[in-house]
């Protein structure tokens, strides 16, 4: 078992999924992230012990993906967020299956979504085939959206 999953984190991820699934708020948060960052795709994503699952979407139709292939798995191991201006120039991601195809991902920004007790569950994230350098105020607004999303998640988890 990975260190990432040592504290019952996968069970919390599944609880978060069950608490939020199907709520229109999820797509609304994804749309908001896309709007703030000026990108073509954004998702609300959960990452359990094997799989990343998009639970809210804007401009993205992809389904669940193996955890070891996705940017969000790197993101949830950061304190606050992961920003990759150009994945083709980043040795962590340049051989990634989402990056190497024609039209693959260049830009990624994801803010870590945590459970009330602090465990990382997933991200509010955005990605685009065009590389970009986000402005500080865009990242601040992404953080604000994440903070509000965490309040919503806590409400749904704890009533």
């Amino acid at each position: 078992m990975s260190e990432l999953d040592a504290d019952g984190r996968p069970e919390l991820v599944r609880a978060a999924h069950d608490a939020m699934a199907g709520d229109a708020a999820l797509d609304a948060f994804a749309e908001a992230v896309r709007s703030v960052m000026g990108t073509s795709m954004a998702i609300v994503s959960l990452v359990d012990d094997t799989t990343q699952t998009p639970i809210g979407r804007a401009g993205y139709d992809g389904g669940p993906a193996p955890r070891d292939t996705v940017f969000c798995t790197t993101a949830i191991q950061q304190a606050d967020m992961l920003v990759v201006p150009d994945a083709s120039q980043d040795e962590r991601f340049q051989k990634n299956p989402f990056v190497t195809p024609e039209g693959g991902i260049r830009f990624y920004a994801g803010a870590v979504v945590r459970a009330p007790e602090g465990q990382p569950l997933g991200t509010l994230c955005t990605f685009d085939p065009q590389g970009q350098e986000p402005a500080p105020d865009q990242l601040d607004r992404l953080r604000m959206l994440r903070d509000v999303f965490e309040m919503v998640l806590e409400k749904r988890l704890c009533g």
Partner: protein
Amino acid sequence: MTGAYPVPDDDEERLVDLATYAVAHVRDPELDAMAAAARILLDADYGLVSFVDRREQWFGGRSGLAVDGTPREQSMCSHAILEDDTMVVEDASKDVRFHDNPLVTGDLQIRGYAGAVVRSTSGLPLGTVCAIRREPGPFEEEDVQRLRGLRDAVEALLHARRQSLLRLVESERDHV
């Protein structure tokens, strides 16, 4: 009181301030997310970020209902912006200000209302972030506190966006 709404003393000044936020007729994905949060955090049926303009209120963000705005005289938020901080109505159908309001008597069936005033950087009221229930009943203080937190986030988003808008206008001006 049908057809009437309270007008703050500083309404003209307030409307000038509101215009600088460029929110009329605009639905905003960030504010939609805030409205969805208001709906969920307060166990409500509808969540709104509403801007009170001269004759209308615009729903810059909305969740749970498909209406872009209403005439100002139907706007509960136009009453809320006269408050210092928040307005809570437990049962609009029993409140003399709202009992014959079409939003209360009609399909939307508004009963419970909790709104927190959203202000401009100069402190003038622009509108509210509010949560609305179809069932009457009290809002817990904890709920109202959550709404205040959300209001603070909405203000921060609006102010940050206005700042980038102003920067853009200035840089365009420099190019001319």
